[in-house]
């Protein structure tokens, strides 16, 4: 039902540009198939990079981030419209599907284990630090001592894992699924789990406001939620 509002005013040859967090790639490409109001072009990169582009005046139509902090900050500056929380995710520890010494969350602090995490500026890195902050100082130190790389986006962490450069890394559950069997997830205890919430907003001055709004509306609608679920993300909070 929500689709109609945007769909009515849509010309079929309109293309809207969506800047989205790399971890949304599979989900949004799934949703694209159900979105008829316009053609959609995605640019997937780290949420922070995309936010920085918008800060520099770049104008995609929609900005979808792996957290709510970035859209909120942009909204406060008047650069994007009111953000909508449209999905959740879970942070997990990913390990290679075969072999590997890391079998449980507790193994992360062991000597000789190597880890890749996101850098503090990207959402996945921020969430990882939230998790670590909830540990005892000793365990946190032990785990931090095993970090070998701080990647600028979640794709970097996954890449290091699939190439066997590290034994484990903090990524989203949806990433493990997207990796197509190369990775195995180790759950993070609920007590430590951060609230991973995705925010999406229409960019202020978007060239195709109507279609952009329709896209955002659709994301929280049944088609969008189904596509998100299929990609391993949780429902909107």
């Amino acid at each position: 039902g929500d689709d109609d509002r945007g769909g009515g005013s849509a010309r079929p040859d309109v293309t809207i540009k969506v800047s989205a967090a790399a971890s949304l790639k599979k989900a949004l490409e799934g949703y694209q198939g159900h979105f008829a109001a316009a053609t959609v072009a995605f640019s997937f990169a780290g949420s922070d990079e995309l936010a920085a582009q918008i800060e520099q005046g770049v104008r995609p139509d929609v900005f979808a981030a792996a957290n709510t902090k970035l859209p909120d900050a942009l909204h406060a500056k008047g650069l994007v419209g009111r953000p909508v929380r449209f999905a959740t995710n879970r942070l997990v520890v990913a390990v290679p599907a075969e072999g590997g010494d890391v079998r449980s969350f507790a193994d992360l602090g062991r000597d000789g284990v190597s880890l890749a995490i996101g850098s503090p500026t990207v959402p996945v890195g921020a969430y990882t630090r939230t998790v670590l902050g909830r540990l005892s100082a000793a365990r946190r130190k032990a785990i931090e001592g095993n970090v070998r790389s701080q990647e600028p986006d979640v794709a970097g962490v996954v890449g290091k894992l699939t190439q066997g450069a590290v034994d484990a890394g903090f990524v989203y559950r949806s990433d493990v699924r997207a990796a197509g069997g190369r990775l195995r997830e180790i759950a993070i205890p609920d007590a430590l789990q951060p609230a991973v919430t995705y925010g999406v907003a229409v960019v202020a001055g978007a060239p195709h406001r109507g279609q952009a709004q329709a896209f955002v509306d659709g994301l929280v609608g049944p088609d969008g939620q189904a596509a998100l679920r299929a990609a391993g993300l949780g429902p909107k909070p």
Partner: protein
Amino acid sequence: MTARRVAFSAALVVALTVCVAFLTVPVVAIFVSSSPGDLLDGLRDPSARDALRLSLICTSIATGIIVLVGTPAAWLLATRRFRGRALVTTLVELPLVLPPAVAGIGLLAAFGPKGLVGGALGDLGLQPVLTTAGVVVALVFVAAPFYLRQAQSAFEAIDRDWLDASRTLGAGELRTWLLIAIPVARGGLVTGLALAWGRALGEFGATLMFAGSFRGVTQTVPLAIYERFASDFDGALALSAVLVALSAAVLLTVKLLGSGSPGGSENGREQRRGPGNGLGAGVGR
């Protein structure tokens, strides 16, 4: 004595072998790691085909622009002496050593909507950010110095007598440039073109920052490779292999073609390379 000579030759061979091995193993690894099946799948994937098409279009336009504007600019740098010439050539070469991401930042700071001249561009309705035009801008920026450098030295290597002779035969500077300088410098120009094209084909960081990575609009092959890196390493390898093969083919073709060109400053004087096959003759191999 003989032992020392053999040792030196051996050391040279070892050095070259180490270089070649180190520089080619990663390239070979890309091919080895991607099965032929992956390669074909990679090419069959429509988004890969979009990226290839876009890459070819954008690199062609970019090298076209570089040649059109860069050739006269290089000619001027090669033939005129003026104050600050060393500075200008350095400025023109600077993008060579700029990290691509910094190049992207610079492009945004210059031509972005909030950039130095971006506002003026925007008022004219020319806003390259996130468009295919933006890709071309980024490619021109990173690749132009490769061509300019090579073209300038190719023009500088031309024997001045040829240019002077053309002038005394009634040809103005334009005619001299078109009929003598460019044909004579052809080899160097084509090499520069190939390098610039190769650099443009491989450009990643600046494109991502300045033009984004929109499939079919701004997602060139390197961006497509990057996007696949995490989720589809095999696909990334396959696309990389295609890219490498393309670059190598172009470089090698140019190298083989270039060897038949009229070359630098021969001008009737016999080249002073003695007969025989180099120093090796004396080394008694």
